[in-house]
């Protein structure tokens, strides 16, 4: 009797403990975010003392012509936009990856694996190739390319056996991704020897070096709105873990939720690709690691994934711009170096759920 009475109490304390540990993770993540932000501004070819960073951040003006003035210029025109772009792109890629893994009930699903990134990169390349530069056309072209890719992949995977089979999905993603990469390569080939070639090549490798305040002004609202929308649907993702019929019985319209979330995730990924090129594997590793740390409840997982993705990409970019100084590596190379082995590890150890 005594034991039976104690049980519910243990229950309550377990819940409190869990809430507390989740709160701890969020506090830790936010602290890391701030630290990352500051370090990201400090580190670079020209070292900037932390004192100057803070003096800039609190809005103090430096004397014109002094070393402080140049440092402030570097901060405002180069470092700050770059770090902020890294945060936004990392956030967008990670949270859409988290949403897609939830949608397809599989830790292998990600914007890269499903061909969205390749499609978006083809779209962006085509925009560059046609000389339609500009902050509106790039994300738009990327979005059209990305939606086309994911649309084809999704339809292929559905028609085979009504339910979306994960294996078909990933295979179709690889095939469609390869097709779009081929189109991009063809565009590179056609524009050989021109400025546009370097532009297109840059986009296929991914990097944050072209950050500017104009980019940020377009990307920031997209990422903020998209992330909030996905977080608003995190409850639907939890229900979808019970399968489509399971979700239906919990009052969720599975087709509608899936279509909305896939659309938002595609738009987020495409916009990120439009401004920073294809940066692979962020959307694969980060949600997976966060799920290991805090469990699969998407209401906590998605916000944590967004912050962790932002932190991760800024660090990857710091590595990219310092590892072979003075040359700067495209950050996509760094994330792929970390992500591809991780993907193989997942394939090897985790049972892939159908």
């Amino acid at each position, binding site marked *: 009797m005594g034991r039976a009475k104690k*049980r*519910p109490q243990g*229950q309550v304390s*377990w*819940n409190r403990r869990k809430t507390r540990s989740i709160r701890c993770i969020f506090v830790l993540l936010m602290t890391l975010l701030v630290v990352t932000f500051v370090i990201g501004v400090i580190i670079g070819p020209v070292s900037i003392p932390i004192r100057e960073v803070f003096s800039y951040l609190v809005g103090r003006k430096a004397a014109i012509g002094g070393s402080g003035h140049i440092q402030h210029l570097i901060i405002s025109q180069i470092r700050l936009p770059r770090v902020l772009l890294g945060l936004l792109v990392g956030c967008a890629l990670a949270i859409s990856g988290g949403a897609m893994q*939830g949608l397809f*009930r*599989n830790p292998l699903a990600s914007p890269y694996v499903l061909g969205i990134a390749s499609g978006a990169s083809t779209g962006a390349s085509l925009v560059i190739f046609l000389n339609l530069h500009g902050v509106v056309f790039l994300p738009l072209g990327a979005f059209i390319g990305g939606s086309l890719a994911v649309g084809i992949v999704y339809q292929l995977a559905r028609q085979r056996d009504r339910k979306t089979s994960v294996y078909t999905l990933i295979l179709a993603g690889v095939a469609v991704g390869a097709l779009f990469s081929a189109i991009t390569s063809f565009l590179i080939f056609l524009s050989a020897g021109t400025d546009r070639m370097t532009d297109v090549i840059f986009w296929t490798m991914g990097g944050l070096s072209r950050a500017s305040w104009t980019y940020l002004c377009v990307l920031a609202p997209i990422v903020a709105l998209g992330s909030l929308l996905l977080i*608003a649907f995190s*409850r639907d993702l*939890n*229900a*979808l*873990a*019970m*399968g489509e*019929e*399971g979700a*239906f*019985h*919990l*009052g*969720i*319209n599975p087709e509608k939720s899936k279509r909305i979330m896939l659309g938002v995730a595609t738009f987020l990924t495409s916009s990120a690709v439009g401004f920073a090129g294809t940066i692979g594997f962020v959307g694969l590793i980060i949600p997976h690691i966060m*799920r290991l740390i805090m*469990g*699969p*409840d998407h209401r906590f997982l998605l916000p944590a994934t967004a912050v962790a993705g932002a932190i991760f990409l800024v660090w990857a970019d710091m590595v990219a711009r310092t590892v072979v100084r003075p040359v700067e590596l495209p950050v996509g190379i760094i994330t792929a170096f970390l992500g591809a082995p991780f993907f193989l590890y997942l394939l090897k150890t985790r049972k892939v*759920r*159908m």
Partner: protein
Amino acid sequence: MNITIEGLHFSYDGEPVLEEIGLSIEKGEIFAIVGPNGSGKTTLLKNISGVLTPDRGAVYLGMKQIADLSTWEIARQLAMVEQDREVGFDFTVREVIAMGRIPHQSRFARENKVDKKRIEEAMRVCSVSSLANRLLAEISGGERQRVFLAMALAQEPKVLLLDEPTTHLDINYQLQIMEIVRAQAIDGLTVVMALHDLNLVAQYADRAAMLDKGHLLEIGKPDEVLTEANIKRVFHTDVIVTKHPLTNSFYVMPLPYRFDRSKSRSSEQESV
């Protein structure tokens, strides 16, 4: 809440699966759907739950036609325990059961006192409280099924649908599930379930319907439906249906193929 089905027809890709089904199920009743594999039991349940929409005819939950209700409105009244449900990701038992509260929560709401109470109540009723922190993937099939039942009960449904809830379970787990369901029905829950095990139907169902290739063959009390003649006709199997001397409820005993029925009957008569 009572359920009424009128003139229901349903087909998959032009292939008729259910034809001219008419039923009415009372509040607090345990209603069993029996029939061989492929007779349309699951399809009928899915038509009742709103997952599938009938080609013709209608299903009413209380006074309202289910086709007119939104997914959310259905989920607030009706819960379903599916057969072989696969859950993605490593959720804990409590997290899964807490999902039963989704139809009662607004999009951003956190678990409130009522939710907590219902979840703990459902866990207690299904005796899964001690499993709360375990991962769903770690527990046994019998425990798993009780967890899904607890999730359905946390949903506070007025109608509970169960699709073969006892398949693959050991006999003790089968009885546990049926006892929980019966206790809920006594409290007014309307229960509709597809069941393989005719003896469980005999023991627990108030009424039963026998499906034969998508047609309703018979509706009535279990002893009216589970007759030797009906079972022979639908399952093509010889059985003996007798009253159990101890429990006084009847039971169905399949006869092996080698058993020569005519002989046994005659010997019985001789002894009388």
